[in-house]
């Protein structure tokens, strides 16, 4: 058995078995509680730079399937689990998890008392960590870890965003949706394409002019990794888009940027929300939904309650944090969680419908703006 180490910023050490190449990797350690959807987590750009601990005991049982990745590559910095299953039983064209990790050059550490690790993080809060399967002295590993910057203040969208604008779908579709890609998950794009939409995906550093020139009917500000606070340029861009009365939908990091653009504050959570069982209440309908969440930062509730232009629409039922809001006088709304699921429940799919409804309303206000949906939908 190849030994591997998990070293936490506070000096705590766990040993386990190395799965994948001989390497050392550093990131913020966090845990996810989903019992399904490991592949979606590995490839979710919002997990960029993070070492993910799975609380679910068996990982790899159903292999890896091409269609289920949320981006073109593995985005996590490393992975820690209890049982890493070499064998899987899926008949659909797929590869095994170990093969996938080897191919992607990512290290996983298995045979760890993950419950102990999770309880430790729960008590001590988010922190950096290092995993290594190389035979390096502990002091050297500690030195490497010490150099790793804190997630707080770290803008990471540029690392995972597309570098060039691209489009998806048919140009002749009824709606033109511009997506500001800060690390967008594939299923957000797929969810938009389920509607009669032509999607333009813009890089993190796109300008207002570039986006406006494409003449979008609505804007989606995507999810993404890291601290929203340093993303001043993007917040500025979002503010300008909103000022132009552009129907805007923000997801996760996008939600935080919309909040920042309106003068709200964000903060780093002691432990983030990561899992697919997060209960959220829609305050407008009184209905509850079980949601997929993955965030380590949140919008300050106090700052939102003080701000007259903002209305809190959704709250997280476990800790009363803000899960969604809308602007009172603009066609803008956003959620802290993931209506596109993948992984997780589809209870919040209605938000996409709501987005297109908002676009229709907005178009109807303009001269000649009634939408003719194409038949193919």
């Amino acid at each position, binding site marked *: *058995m190849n030994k591997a180490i998990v070293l936490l910023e506070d000096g705590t050490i*766990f040993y386990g078995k190395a799965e994948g190449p001989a390497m050392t990797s550093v990131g913020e350690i966090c*845990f996810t*509680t*989903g*019992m*399904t*959807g490991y*592949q*979606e987590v590995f490839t979710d750009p919002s997990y960029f730079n993070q070492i993910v601990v799975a*609380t*679910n*005991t*068996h990982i790899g*049982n*159903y292999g890896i*399937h091409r*269609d*289920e990745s949320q981006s073109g590559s593995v985005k996590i910095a490393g992975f820690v689990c*209890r*049982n890493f*299953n070499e*064998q*899987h*039983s*899926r*008949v*659909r*064209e797929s590869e095994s998890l170990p093969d996938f990790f080897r191919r992607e050059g990512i290290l996983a550490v298995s045979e760890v*008392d*993950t*419950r*102990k690790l*999770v*309880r430790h993080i*729960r008590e001590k809060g988010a922190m950096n960590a290092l995993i290594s399967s190389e035979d390096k002295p502990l002091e050297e590993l500690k030195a490497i870890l010490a150099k790793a910057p804190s997630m707080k203040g770290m803008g990471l969208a540029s690392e995972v965003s597309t570098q060039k604008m691209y489009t998806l779908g048919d140009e002749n579709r009824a709606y033109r949706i511009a997506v500001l890609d800060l690390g967008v998950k594939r299923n957000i794009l797929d969810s938009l394409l389920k509607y009669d939409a032509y999607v333009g995906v813009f890089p993190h550093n796109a300008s207002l002019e570039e986006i406006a020139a494409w003449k979008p009917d609505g804007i989606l500000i995507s999810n993404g990794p890291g601290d929203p606070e340093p993303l001043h340029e993007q917040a500025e861009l979002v503010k300008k888009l909103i000022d132009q009365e552009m129907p805007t939908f923000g997801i996760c990091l996008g939600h935080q940027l919309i909040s920042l653009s309106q003068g709200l504050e964000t903060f780093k959570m002691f*432990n983030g929300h990561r*899992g*697919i*069982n997060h*209960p959220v*209440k829609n305050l407008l309908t*009184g*209905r*509850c939904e*079980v949601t997929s969440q993955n965030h380590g930062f949140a919008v300050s509730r106090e700052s939102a309650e003080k701000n007259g232009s903002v209305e809190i629409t959704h709250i997280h*039922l*476990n800790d009363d944090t803000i899960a969604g809001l809308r602007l009172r006088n603009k066609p803008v709304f956003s959620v802290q969680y993931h209506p596109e*699921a*993948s*992984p*997780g*429940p*589809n209870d919040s799919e209605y938000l996409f419908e709501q987005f297109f409804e908002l676009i229709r309303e907005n178009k109807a206000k303009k001269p000649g703006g009634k939408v003719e949906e194409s038949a193919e939908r």
Partner: protein
Amino acid sequence: MPKDQSIKSVLIIGSGPIIIGQAAEFDYSGSQAARSLKEEGIEVTLINSNPATIMTDKVTADNIYLLPLEPASIVQILKEHQIDAVLPSMGGQTALNLAIKCQEQGIWEEYGVKMIGVDTNAIEITEDRELFRQKMAEIGIPMAPSKTAKSFLEGKEVAQEFGLPLVIRPSFTLGGSGGSVVYDKEDLESALQRGLQASPIHEVMIDKAVIGWKEYELELLRDRNGNVVIICSIENFDPMGIHTGDSITVAPAMTLSDTTFQKMRNMAIKMIRSIGNFAGGCNVQFSVSNDEKEEIIAIEINPRVSRSSALASKATGYPIAKIASKLALGYMLDELKNPVTGNTSAMFEPTLDYVIVKIPRWNFDKFKGANRRLGFQMKSVGEAMGIGRSFQEALQKACQSLEIGRNGLGADGKELTDQNVILDSLKHPGWDRLFHIYDAFKLGISFSTIHKSTLIDPWFLRQIQELVELEGEIVQYTLDNIPEGLLREAKKKGYADRQIAHLLRCLESQVYEKRNKLGIKRVFKQVDTCAAEFPAETPYYYSTFEEENESVQSGREKVIILGSGPNRIGQGIEFDYSCVHGVLAAKECGYETIMINCNPETVSTDFTTADKLYFEPVFWEHIYDIILHEKPIGVIVQLGGQTALKLAEKLDKYGIKIIGTSYHALDLAEDRGRFSSLLKENEVPYPKFGSVKSAEAAVKMSRELGFPLLVRPSYVLGGQSMKIVINEEELEQHVVNILHQMPGNEILIDNFLSGAIEAEADAICDGEDVYIIGIMEHIEPAGIHSGDSYAVLPPFNLGDLILTQIEEITKKVALALNTVGLINIQFAIKDDVVYVIEANPRASRTVPFIAKAYQEPYVNYATKVMLGHKKVKDFDFKPVKKGYAIKVPVFSFDKFHEVSKELGPEMKSTGEAIHFIDNLKDEYFHKIYGERNLYLSR
């Protein structure tokens, strides 16, 4: 929308006597519901005819009615109490049926009673296959292809179209009778004929059987507002074709991708919302194709609390019945808290950081001639659940919990080696297929053959194969040279020290010592609903082999109560009743109470029962490690039936205090020779007997004793392998049979007191004084197991002389055995002489019955006596004696059509009911008294 303020008083309907398919889980749900409603300040009235339940106890409900589950009983209750609402979703199909019957008769309307927690429309849709099918088609939920056929020719055409296997169900017959699964072409014609003939309208429904598809269950909760949460996903290890109650099941689902799981989740929500508007629990079953399409079809939906929801509650920690009751009152999920964490929302989907495996417990040995092949008809009588940090560990622990004389899966020298037998078992699943899969791998049968024969998902098969490989590695070493890593791996994968000892050819204690020296120690982890995301207020514990131990020893004085393991014939819910009362009594005495049990159906494994619950096998190794960790003042073994009792010897050997009657007294009562000497010394008559170890000795002995003879192995439960023989030939045959099943076992031969009357007495003894709590007289003459006979409390035709003798003997024997706690003595009365047949110094099957009939907490009293907190004379006994209470045995023979209904010394009943009569002129009494010889085998 908070709770409905108009509801101040609720009637809960129980599920009646235990039968196969409707067991202890409904006592768990019913008692949880009652407590949940009482928390809300609601007056709870309960009806159930099953006396051996916690739900029908003063500790649970305000008003209790031990009446037959009939509309007349409901009317009686409604006349005596102002009831605002009835909650029928906690008592299985029995309660639902009764509620619907009352609705049809207009009873609820007449008394202004609201039905809560169910929607009768929903029940109708889910019970009627055709309506259900239409509804599913309407909302676009696929089901297995199905067609009706009105003629033989039509049927053959449908068969042609669907291909085999097929399920044929006659229309409009009850309980699926006349239905069958057709695997082979040769069987099609006869099955069609049979089905058409069985149907009153000459019509059959033919379903394409999706045999081999993967099977799943989702447990849901839904509130009035339409909010839905999935509490648990359960995957069946056995694919479609075996009733889910007879399947080994695993949670969480192991082989489902998120994509397919979410599709299933969406379907379940759509289904539950389509069948009506109700607030409560619901179970939905699905099947998934085992090919690349991962096609999902719906099987059925049950809009009530079920066996699976009890399992899901124990598997996740989320108390489904408790929350479902509050939802029925009108609460919304988001208005309630998760009771385990204490401060997060009940609108929550539990997440597991462990695996649970449930294995059913069968009792085919009690049903001679029963078809042992598993299929659509449930046949198991109980279940055990193992929890571990991997599937393999959970599987091993579940196997260790079964009490079938195995030490887990494999590594005990009991494997089959006959290839043909194994292959046949793989294809035609019986109760022991799991063990035969292991044997098949061990024998070197190829993976693909095993897969093709069983159609079990390769992931599960691979897990078992890995265990066999590990075993192969271990066996190459000895205790002295086994590498630490390998030993650790074996422990992590759930192997018991006994199994490892078998592989290393040494003693269990040596393995134990070695692994402790190496620091390979059991730690305890929490079941907390949330995979450690939040701190938990009321978690429970399971053991594993990892780094961190989360079970903090409190420093208080503690008492451990050993549970009774999986239910089986002869050891059912009565023992769980006693365990729960033992826990409550010890709590009252100021002790911290610790429960150890592995039966997910029970109240004893409800986390609110004991101060601390270890959900662990009632298996020596696990118990010993818990004892070493918790350091209790002692262990109570006399409440958990034979399961707990048989651990007394080891506890005694390891110097652990047994609370109440000592091991030596327990052993003396079991040892026929020494016990008879004791009777002799005390001048107590007993039937002439002898003990032998061979057929030859038996025949010799028979000449001394004379026929008829009662022959049985010593140290068994529920009259296992007990038989009355009338000649030498039969005697020899039976002795050989027993020795074949239990080599080396001592065999007892008693002179059978033919035609004798049987009676039994239960008593509490503190070593000085004896109080007889009740004497029951059997209606049938000797020859029928006490568990299977009708019995009357108090005796109905024993003279004063006999009763005085019974009382005197009971006191004498209880004191002679130095009983501290409960004792049950069985008598045979012939020619005015009272003979002692046996004495059991422990809680018996009849104690709960007497406690209910006389309305006194006898187990509570006995526990306080055991703990030395009270003497018998400290209690003010005030039994409510009014008329007679008849114990009615209930059988599940309808599940085994092929088995003869003959009764004998081997127990066969699965449950019991209580029936009160005012006097002996009662018609019911006359009927059963008149039929007392009807089913007698000898």
